[in-house]
Structure formats: C-alpha cells, structure tokens
C-alpha cells in the first residue's frame, strides 16, 4: 500500500480513464450522495455515460451508507466489477467497500478518527490520507462541509481545473443560501490546499478524463421513467401508498400529474390504492397503481378481480428483498412467481420486464395501452436497482408513444350497435365496452362469473365459454408484446437468460466472457407472462442455459420450466444476498460452471 505523503509520486503521466467508478462511503447523513452528484455532472460533461446507485442501510439515521457513480465511454446498465476511487469517511467504509477496489485504485481516507485499517485495501492501491472531518469542523465549523472539501481534492485527482470545479459546485448548490454556498466553496478551496500539499498541484493529476463532449442524454431512474411512460401514454390516475423502493413512482406522479390535469391519491393502504385505481379505470381513465413486494402481495385478491371482471390495470412492482418485510433497500427478484401465479383462480395477466430506464419508459407506455386493449392487469416488474438507480439513456422518443384505448366505445358507436353486451363473446376474447356516462351503454361489471350481459351465472356451459373467452386474450395480445433482446454468438449452444437488473450486468459480463474465450448467446425476455415462444425456442436451441437471477429458489428458472422449457437444460446462477452481481463475479461463476461441464 502506498500512503501518499511524498509529492514526488505524481510526476508520472496521469492514466486516461474512460471507465471510472467512484464510491463515497460513510455513515448515513455524511452526505455521500453530494460528492457523487457533483462527480456525475463532471463525468457527463466529458461525454461519459453514467450509472449511479446508492446503498443505504435499513436504518433511520446512521448505518453504513455509500453512493457510487460510474462514468463510462460505453453505456453499461450497471456498476461493472470494481471501484476505482474510494472516498472513505470511516473505518466501516473501508471494511464494506475496500474489497471491491481495483488493484490500481485510489483511496481517499478520512483520518480524523485514526489511521486507515490495515489489510483490506489492495497493497497496490494509492492511499491519500486526509483528516476531512477534523479540518472541516476546525476551519468551517461544520462536519458536512467535508463533502465539498473531498470534491476539491477529488477534482485534482481527476485533473479537473479549479475554476471548473468551482462552477460545478456553484451550479449544483445554486438553491442554497449564500452563506451555505460560501461555506462549501471555502471547503472546496480547502480541498485544493490539501491536494497541493499532497503534490496534486494544478495540472498534475493522477487520472485524466476523456476529451468527449457532453451528449444530450437523460439521467433518470426506472421508477421515474416508468411513471413518465404512463403519463406520456395518457395515464391520468394513480393511487398508491408509500413503500420503499416504490415511493418515487407515487411521488413523481403526485408532483407531475396535476399539471396534466391528472390525479394522484395517496390512499390509506394498498387495498384502497388498487381499488381506487379500479374505480378510475372503470370510468375509462388510464389508471395505475404500484407498490413494492409486500404491498403487491396485499393486492392479490384485487388483481385477480381485475382479471375476472376485465378491468384495465397497470401495476408497477418495484421488487425488494423478501420474504415479508425482508430487506427494504436491497435487491431481489423474488416476486416473479407471485406476479405470475398469485391471486386466486385462473385469469389472464401480463407481466412485463424492462431492463433499463429507456425500457421502463417504453414499457410504462405500452402497459398503459395493453391494459385497456386487453382489459386485464398488466404488471411492470422492476427491482430495487432498476427502480432507484439513475442511468443515462437516449432522450425518450415522445412521438413514438401512441394512445390506444382498445375496444372502448363512444356514445355514437354504442348507438350503432344492435345490442351492447359488456361481456360479449368475441373471437379475440376482448369485448367492446362502454364506460359509465355513455348513453345506452348500461352494463354490469362483476368479479363473479357472469353471462354476456354481466349477470351473475354459474351455469356450466356459460362458465366454460367465459373462461375460454378470457383466456383467448393472451393469444390476441401476444403480437403486441415486446420481443426479447438477443445478442451474442448465435452459433453457440450455451445461452444466458436474465431480466431486470441483470440485463445490464449480463451485457457487460458477456463481453468479459467473450474475451476469455467463452462464447455464448444472450436472451433477455421482456415478457415473463405469457411466455413467448421465442424464449422457449431459444432454450430449445441451446445445450444449456444459465439462468442468472436474484432469487434463492430460482423463480425465473421455475417460470421457464413451468412454461414448458426443458428443466434439464437450465442452470441457475443465483445471488440472493441483497446486492447485484459484479460482472467479474458473474463471469467467474459461469466459467466455473462451464468448467464443470
């Protein structure tokens, strides 16, 4: 380990860095996110793609908290395999994050409470010890200033010029009071000063950012993007209830729906939320609800009801680690079984699975249309990472968003009919419908079995007709469902399947493996139910398929075999510790499994 006290060290040429992951870690409340946000601005201005995540213990205040940002020349939908720079505000930060550092990592350690613990950080790393907290409190009377202080030092490390650093800071903090801004700017200077002492004088950086230019991209989370897609497709009613990590969907729509004359209602619980959305949907409004795993579990009866009564409903599930309350801030994909098989009885439903923020937008819009076209519940399956991590994606194509209300009848259309039956039996399984308020469209909507008029009936013949009619919908809408993303070596007989947070991770791991001579093909379904033939065909065309998922029991694997895939071909690669796969970790697991073949 090189503890940097000797300025001479920085005579070497700075390394070019077009794939840089920076982590700031400390206790919750240390403000790790501040530095990361400033850095994100810097990296974006150099034309890099961004991925930002944070890791907060399930504690109210305090507990380990860290924020990470990756800036990369290529777009990756994840963190990659290691951290290049770690700003550690305490010992725990080193213990939690030290093991993930690259061998040439740079560690900036806050020595206010003592020296850095030994034996964790790679011995080849460069360590810059600085008593941030002590300096900040002594010089500026506020511990929180250590963030701008750290940013000052970091700017020199990555070769940012001082004025630019000051600009970024002022831009980010423009809403602060003049006094607070001033304090932060002083802290920044403090950072420059320490850098000077360490020999990181202006022009003498350790790293160098690429010369790229800022691109027009969105930096957005999946929760926001899904809500945006819903709004763009005419979504006008949302009812929800706070829950991590789904709350942002509710907050976002609460903030934005009113400008579009839409309504967000915070309900008294999830049962109320989905039923309010049902009420709105019945009037023809495009309605959505959402929650995270336990809240979705509560909605099971109501979801079955939408399937039975043929009510359009979009349901966002920002999955978190379960079972039960589980680990609210951690990653898991443990609800696939529940989304596909939960709720009582047999009913048509659609489960969509986006893999990045762009797809969240597109699938948010598509789900909004599909719900009204198919008159059934449509899930958008997110996971903690997809929900809350920000990533840069191309600007959304607003013009591509259509509004398709399916077989909703206007008053004129109703008047032209000989007879109007809410549940008329049609070839495609979908009945035209008139919403309350439409003259002449009187009807009954019910969750009991019913005849075409909506009158309750348990007559066996009618029952079969109605079950068959509803089941036919799935065939009807299949052509509208998003196709899988497939790539890789089509001649290979080894496949990988994964969804959600695994999408980005696999796309990067795939290349690591390719570099190591393991050639594979990748298949990323974006529909989990009804399973499309393409996915079964993909599996049929492989000798073995690695099913990469964040579930202990292998829910995705069970979904695939339950849909008819040969279970003998499926090899589960599972992680269920609450954290996403690192790319190198995943690559190793697959290489090991291949070795065992």
């Amino acid at each position, binding site marked *: 380990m090189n503890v940097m006290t000797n300025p001479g060290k920085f005579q070497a040429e700075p390394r070019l860095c077009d794939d840089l992951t920076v982590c700031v870690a400390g206790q919750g409340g240390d403000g790790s996110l501040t530095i990361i946000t400033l850095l*994100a601005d810097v990296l974006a201005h150099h034309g890099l793609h961004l991925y930002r995540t944070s890791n907060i213990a399930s504690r109210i205040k305090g507990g380990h908290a860290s924020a990470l940002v990756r800036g990369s020349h290529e777009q990756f939908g994840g963190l990659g395999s290691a951290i290049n720079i770690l700003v550690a505000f305490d010992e725990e930060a080193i213990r939690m994050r030290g093991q993930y550092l690259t061998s040439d990592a740079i560690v900036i350690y806050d020595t206010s409470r003592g020296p850095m613990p030994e034996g964790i950080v790679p011995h080849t790393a460069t360590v810059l010890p600085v008593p941030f907290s002590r300096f900040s409190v002594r010089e500026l009377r506020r511990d929180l200033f250590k963030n701008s202080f750290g940013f000052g030092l970091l700017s020199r490390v990555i070769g940012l010029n001082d004025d630019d650093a000051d600009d970024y800071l002022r831009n980010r903090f423009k809403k602060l009071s003049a006094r607070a801004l001033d304090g932060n700017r002083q802290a920044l200077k403090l950072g420059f000063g320490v850098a000077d002492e360490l020999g990181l004088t202006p022009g003498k950086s350790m790293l160098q950012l690429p010369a790229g230019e*800022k691109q027009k*991209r*969105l*930096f*957005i989370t999946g929760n926001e993007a899904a809500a*945006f897609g819903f*709004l*763009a497709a*005419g979504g*006008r*009613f949302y*009812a929800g209830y706070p829950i991590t990590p789904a709350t942002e969907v509710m907050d976002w729509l609460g903030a*934005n729906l*009113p*400008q579009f*004359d*839409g*309504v967000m*209602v915070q*309900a*008294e619980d999830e*049962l*109320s*939320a989905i*039923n*309010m*959305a*049902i*009420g*709105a*949907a*019945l*009037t*023809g*409004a*495009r*309605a959505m609800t959402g929650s995270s795993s336990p809240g979705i579990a509560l909605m099971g009866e109501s979801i079955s*009801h939408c399937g039975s009564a043929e009510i359009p409903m979009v349901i966002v599930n920002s999955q978190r680690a379960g079972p039960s309350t589980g680990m609210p801030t951690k990653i898991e994909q443990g609800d696939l079984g529940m989304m596909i098989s939960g709720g009582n009885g047999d009913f048509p439903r659609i489960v969509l699975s986006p893999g990045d923020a762009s797809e969240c937008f597109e699938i948010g819009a598509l789900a909004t249309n599909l719900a009204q076209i198919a008159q059934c519940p449509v899930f958008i399956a997110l996971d903690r990472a997809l929900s809350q991590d920000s990533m840069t994606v191309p*600007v959304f194509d*607003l013009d591509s*968003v259509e*509004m398709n209300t399916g077989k909703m009848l206007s008053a004129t259309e109703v008047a032209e009919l000989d*007879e*109007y039956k*809410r549940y008329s039996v049609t070839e495609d399984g979908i009945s035209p419908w008139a919403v*309350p*308020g439409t003259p*002449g*469209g*009187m*009807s*009954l*909507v*019910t*969750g009991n079995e019913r005849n075409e*008029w*909506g*009158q*309750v009936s348990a007559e066996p013949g009618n029952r079969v007709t109605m079950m068959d009619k509803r089941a036919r919908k799935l065939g009807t809408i299949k052509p509208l469902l998003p196709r899988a993303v497939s790539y890789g070596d089509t001649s290979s007989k080894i496949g990988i399947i994964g969804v959600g947070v695994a999408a980005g991770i696999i796309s990067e791991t795939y290349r690591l493996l390719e570099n190591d001579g393991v050639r594979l093909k990748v298949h990323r379904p974006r529909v989990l139910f009804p399973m499309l033939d393409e996915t079964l065909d993909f599996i049929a065309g492989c000798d073995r398929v690695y099913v990469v998922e964040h579930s202990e029991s292998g829910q995705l694997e069970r979904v695939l075999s339950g849909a008819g895939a040969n279970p003998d071909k499926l090899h589960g690669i599972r992680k269920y510790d609450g954290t996403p796969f690192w790319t190198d970790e995943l690559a190793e697991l697959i290489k090991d499994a291949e070795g065992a073949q």
Partner: protein
Amino acid sequence: MTITYTPTNPVWCSGCGHYGVKGALERAFDVLGIQPCETMLLTGIGCSGSIQNNVNAYGYHSMHGRVLPTATGASIANPDLTVIAAGGDGDGYAIGAGHLVHAFKRNANVLYILMNNAVYGLTKGQDSPTSGSFGQAIADAPIDGIAMGLSIPGTTFLARGFIRQADQLNSLMVQALEHVRAKKGFAFLEVLSPCVTYHDTYPDWNARFYDLDADREYTAEDRGAAFVKTLALNEEGKIPTGMIYHEDRPCFGADWLENDSSPAQLSAHDPHNHRDELQELMGRYLM
C-alpha cells in the same frame, strides 16, 4: 335503439329489507330526474351486494369490503357521474371498516348506502359488527357507524333510515343524492334493512327506532350534540333515525374541480395535447 342490459328482479328472500332500499333509490332517481347512464351504482359482496343488478344504472360489483375506494376512484376520475356505493354491515363495518374511516375523512363525492341487517346474510347468518343490541354496553358492543362518522372531522352528511319508515327513507335518499350532486362530498346513509331469514330484527327495530327528524329540539348541525343525543338514545335502548348530522363543505378535490381548463373526465384526455409539457418535463432529466 341499442338493446342493452335491463335490470332483473332481485334474488332476495321475500320480506327482505333490501327491497325497501331499492325502492327508495329508484324513487329518488325519479324525483331528481337522474339519468341511468350518468349513474354508477357500485356494491360490495353480500345479499346487499346484488342491488346493482336490479336498478337502472351502470352497475359494478366489487370485492367484499372494497366498494368505497372503488367508488372514490370513480367519482374522482369522472366528477360528472352520480356515484353511489352500497353494501352490507359486514361489508362496510367489518372488512371495510378502515376504508369507511377514510371515506369519512376524505369526503369524496360519493353516496354510500349501508344496508344494515345486523347479520351476514349471504353467508347464512353469522354475527356482524352490528349484531347484538344497539347501544348495549357489552364487552363486544355493536358498532354504530354514524357515531363513528361523527368522530371523524371530515364528515359532512350522516343519516339513518329504516325500511319501515318509507317516507323518511325516501326523503333521506333524496337529500343524500342532492348532497353528492351538489359536490358537497360523502353522504353516509345507513338503512336498517332486516334479514328475515337469518336475523329478523323487524319487531325489535320497530319498537326501538326514534325519529329525530320529528324531534323539534334537534338540529342536525351540531356534531357534539348529535353525539350526545345518540348516546342518550342508545342508553334508552333507542336507535335514532333521520338526518343526524349535516355540514356544508366542499368535497375532496373541489379545488381542482373548479379548474375548468380541462375536461373533468380523466378518460377524455388526449396526451397529444400535452406534447409540450411532456417535452418540458423530460428536459429536467437532460444531463
């Protein structure tokens, strides 16, 4: 003319109180000239929960206990509708009790008819939250939905009718409908509607109802007085009927309903009209 669904005859036992609720509702529609197609009748599950099959309106049959959130959602999404929720005492006071509290609190523009027969009719006779005698201070004393309504600051309309007092019931039904049609919010009308098959409360209720409308000293405008009067009557073994509490206040969402720059019905929105706002919104995420 397009042939559509026509209301069927009720499947209730003969003598069931629920017939009286249906009658009062239909009469009120007549009196106020309410159009079937502008009316949405949502129900819970129970014997009560089949009334929508028999009344000329858009009908919806919810799950057990969930009719109030649904009605709330519908009334918000299309304020031009007259939204009526109906259900039983099991539906509203047991499984739906939490939603009732919040319906009171929220004051959304919904008429809620709670058909109280102090029993679970459809499931064949179990005790409901109003079983036992009204107002009797036993360990598992019955729930009085109107007293509960009084205790929640948001309430604006609390009344109780009895199927055997048809004129009063008709009048309360009309007033309740007027309340929601004037966008004053949640009108709660509990109707004593006996179940002749599993718990025939006709004789008991006949002897015990007390017509507050006929009480000259009573005004339905004082929340505290209403509460005290209810307690006093209960103590005497009486059940108050009539208009129990009434307040004039705008309904949930009245603020945005006044904004008439846009269609009130959420379903009438065309997102293409909002192209620029969407663009602006997206701009905030540009990096």
